[in-house]
């Protein structure tokens, strides 16, 4: 018998050694101080330890999880040549369809609509093939290529941002999952990911054109009945706001006063529906000397008004477009009051130059002696093609304003003082140096081939994560101790053996997690607790059976053999069903759920192994010992 047991002990010993060896990096990492971590990081050894240690999920460590979706309709619409109303109406319909049934596949919808409207795809996409099927399949390839490029660019941005263990992966055909563990400032990371990084340079329309257009828009909107309701809505908001801003609403007319009769003091005190009704657009705006200001509370209304098709049509007829400044700022008005406003610019609708020409972008503080002294700025340098175009553009438009637009928001609109050759330029208007640095990062990494949208976001603050680790660990330990004590109390020696198996079980599950490079999440900890329950259950089933056998008057050895044999099918059948549930969870779950399923799956397998094989071996060793008389169970 002794000979038969030796290989079993050898196997158990080997597994235990393997378990501790796998867990070693985790233990080591836990005990490192921050200083030691830093020295190891510099030596390049930390990464090796980290990859071998158990990863903590975002819910434990804090961090952010973001799912981005590439806007396929926009991507495909953008690469079309000879765009016309028919094509864009089809894309509008597809977008409407997608918003109703979000699960629909874009390309299915696209081909469906193309067929329904008998659209000749070769007219818009002749570069992509001749027959409709060819074009559709090439466009599909193009979309796939685009998402791969998006992935690469995001990877690049995140690398430069500097996060310890970023995970970026593609999911399906149009999604990217980004996990940033331990990231502190989720807002910075978010804007870094979301930014398309589309840099454009537009000429700003001159004041006369702007004035004329505003009057036209007022006239157009006056006829629009739905505007009256907007005015009413605003009216009710206006009551809450202070008088100063109401007075200012009228002073806008001073900017556009050349055409309209100058409003005198008496009038300016009254801002009521009459003025809204008369000038529904410009009465919501303020004069900022050379440019237009939109009070923060009016932004939504102005956006809605600009979006109106009749206004858009008017804007298109003079080849122009409105864009907002990228952030609200406090402006001191003529009467000394301060109001938070966005700047609004009327720009050419064709960009003079785009960000593709950017070769290098660096964040800096503005040099002394310039207007931007001490302010955060981004220095750009362009490639030769860009530099040439930039020189021609600035040279022929001296005196005009050029707007530097990033992701459809105007960062600054300086006056061109002289021709700029050499391709160097700078962007200002950042809240702080961090923002400038982030913008420089996205400009260097390049623009995304298609806009991306955040469709899911989960952020766990570092304090909540730490709290969860603390309470999770605490409850595991308390539960474990109670169970261990109970087992010894109830089953004596046998209970001690079961306890040994249980601890062994937990060590092995953690070792497997470490070697699988799986992530331990909060539900994972719950899974660990459940494993404790399963492991105890297997032992309880066996022990109760042994007791039954002993009650029948069998010897200890026979009782153990009988007990184990009869308990075996029970344990296997009972655990198999939970195993099935774990597998299904793993298959359908994502993130934390998958973490739970992984722990449960391995927990069950190992608890079966420990209960059937490990404790059995120990029992047999006990029974075979010389002087053994009675089984303590």
């Amino acid at each position, binding site marked *: 018998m002794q000979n038969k047991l030796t290989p079993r002990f050898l196997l158990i010993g080997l597994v235990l050694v393997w378990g501790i060896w796998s867990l070693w990096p985790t233990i080591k990492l836990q005990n490192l101080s921050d200083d030691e971590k830093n020295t190891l990081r510099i030596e390049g050894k930390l990464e090796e330890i980290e990859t071998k240690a158990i990863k903590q999920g975002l819910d434990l460590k804090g961090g952010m999880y973001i799912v981005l979706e590439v806007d396929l309709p926009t991507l495909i619409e953008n690469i079309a040549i000879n765009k016309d109303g028919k094509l864009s109406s089809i894309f509008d319909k597809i977008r409407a369809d997608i918003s109703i049934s979000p699960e629909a596949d874009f390309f299915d919808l696209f081909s469906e609509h193309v067929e329904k409207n008998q659209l000749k795809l070769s007219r818009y996409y002749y570069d992509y093939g001749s027959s409709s099927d060819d074009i559709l399949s090439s466009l599909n390839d193009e979309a796939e290529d685009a998402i791969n490029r998006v992935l690469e660019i995001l990877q690049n941005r995140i690398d430069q941002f500097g996060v310890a263990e970023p995970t970026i992966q593609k999911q399906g055909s149009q999604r990217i999952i980004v996990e940033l563990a331990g990231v502190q400032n989720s807002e910075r990371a978010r804007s870094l990911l979301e930014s398309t990084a589309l840099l454009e340079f537009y000429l700003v329309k001159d004041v006369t054109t702007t004035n004329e257009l505003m009057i036209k828009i007022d006239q157009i909107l006056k006829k629009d009945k739905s505007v009256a309701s907007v005015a009413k809505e605003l009216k009710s908001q206006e009551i809450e706001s202070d008088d100063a801003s109401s007075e200012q609403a009228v002073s806008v007319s001073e900017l556009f006063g050349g055409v309209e009769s100058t409003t005198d003091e008496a009038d300016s005190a009254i801002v009521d529906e009459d003025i809204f009704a008369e000038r529904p657009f410009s009465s919501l705006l303020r004069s900022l000397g050379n440019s237009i200001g939109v009070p923060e509370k009016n932004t939504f209304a102005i956006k809605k008004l600009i979006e109106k098709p009749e206004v858009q049509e008017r804007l298109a007829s003079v080849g122009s477009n409105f864009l907002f400044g990228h952030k609200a700022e406090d402006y001191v008005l003529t009467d000394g009051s301060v109001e938070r406003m966005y700047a609004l610019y009327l720009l050419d609708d064709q960009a003079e130059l785009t960000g593709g020409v950017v070769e290098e972008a660096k964040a800096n503080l503005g040099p002394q002696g310039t207007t931007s002294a001490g302010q955060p700025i981004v220095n750009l340098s362009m490639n030769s093609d860009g530099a040439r175009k930039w020189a021609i553009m600035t040279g022929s438009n001296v005196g005009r304003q050029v707007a530097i637009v990033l992701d459809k928001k105007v960062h600054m609109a300086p006056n061109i003082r002289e021709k700029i050759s050499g391709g160097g330029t700078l962007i200002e208007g950042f809240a702080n140096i961090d923002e400038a640095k982030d913008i420089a990062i996205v400009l260097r990494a390049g623009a995304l081939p298609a806009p991306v949208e955040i469709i899911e976001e989960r952020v766990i603050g570092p304090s909540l994560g730490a*709290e969860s680790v603390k309470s999770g660990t605490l409850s595991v330990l308390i*539960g474990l101790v109670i169970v261990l004590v109970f087992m010894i109390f109830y089953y004596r020696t046998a209970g001690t053996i079961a306890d040994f198996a249980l601890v062994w079980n937990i060590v092995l599950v953690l070792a497997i997690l470490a070697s699988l490079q799986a992530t331990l999440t909060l539900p994972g900890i719950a899974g660990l607790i459940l494993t404790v*329950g399963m492991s105890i259950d297997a032992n309880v089933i066996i022990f109760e059976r042994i007791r039954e056998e002993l009650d029948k008057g069998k010897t200890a050895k026979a009782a153990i053999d009988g007990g184990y044999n009869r308990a075996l099918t029970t344990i296997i059948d009972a655990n*198999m069903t939970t195993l099935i*549930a774990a597998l299904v969870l793993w298959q*359908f779950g994502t993130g934390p759920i998958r973490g739970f399923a992984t722990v449960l799956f391995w927990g069950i397998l190992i608890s079966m192994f420990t209960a059937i094989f490990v404790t059995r071996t120990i029992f047999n060793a006990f029974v075979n010992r010389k002087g053994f008389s009675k089984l303590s169970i």
Partner: protein
Amino acid sequence: MRLLKNPNFDFMSKKLFALTISGLIGLAGIVSLIFHGGPKLSIDFKGGTFVAVQFTEDINVEEVRSKMGDVNIDGQAFDFSREEVKHFGNQTAVSVRVPHIESSPSNLAQKIAVHLYNAFSNKVPENMIDFILSKGMVGPKIGSELSGKAIMAIFSALGLILLYISIRFEFKFALGAIAALSHDVLITLGMFSLLSYEISLPIIAAFLTIVGYSLNDTIVIFDRIRENLKSSKRDSYTDIVNKSINQSLSRTIITSLTTFVVVFILWFFGGEVINTFAFAMIVGVIVGTYSSIYIASPLVIFLHENAKK
């Protein structure tokens, strides 16, 4: 030490009484579910926005709610005062959940957090990063996909388990097991609805674990029935079932008790995030143990006697 020495309770004689209790609790849950128009789904499935923030002192939920009545985002006014606002873990933290809205401004979670930060500027930590405990947004697209996946997960798990038990035992045992676990899930769902707890993604995991646990418990008893059917052929079916339940009673009590203690501690100490997960498990352990004796076993007897006729 022994809890019970050769127990011999006549469990099956009280099955009608037990079924009545089950029926009543189940009915209360069903009524609540119907009344609330189905289970209360979290933003994981519906889409929406979630923010949990930490104040520096105790905060009144009603005060937060009234401040949520007027959230102004770039001139667009929102009234969130009727959305869910409640304490998060303790009296100093609050969570806000807003379902998905059409024309929702981007980054709504952050904007709500900023609104609350400014509204209670004297009760907030200095740094915004310490203020936000957690936040999240689930787009409607993701939500409906997750619902589909969850339903798929539950049904494929049930199907596979049915198949396994049919192969290892008999089909009537499979039906008994499925009835028991449906009972457990229904009661837990009913409890969630009565307490107006939300069904979130981790809760689905908890439900599947309850399924696993309930089956585990049921199968241990079924295993005994299977064994006793072979050895004592002369006894009546009901007697065999009774005997099997009694024989496995010690194990049932010890395992249920230890598991209960473990999940109870998880519920008590586990922290806010895992709280409802652990609650589902507590309910699951109790009803899972009960249903093996009073749902699964009586159904197997019933099916057996029906088949004989």
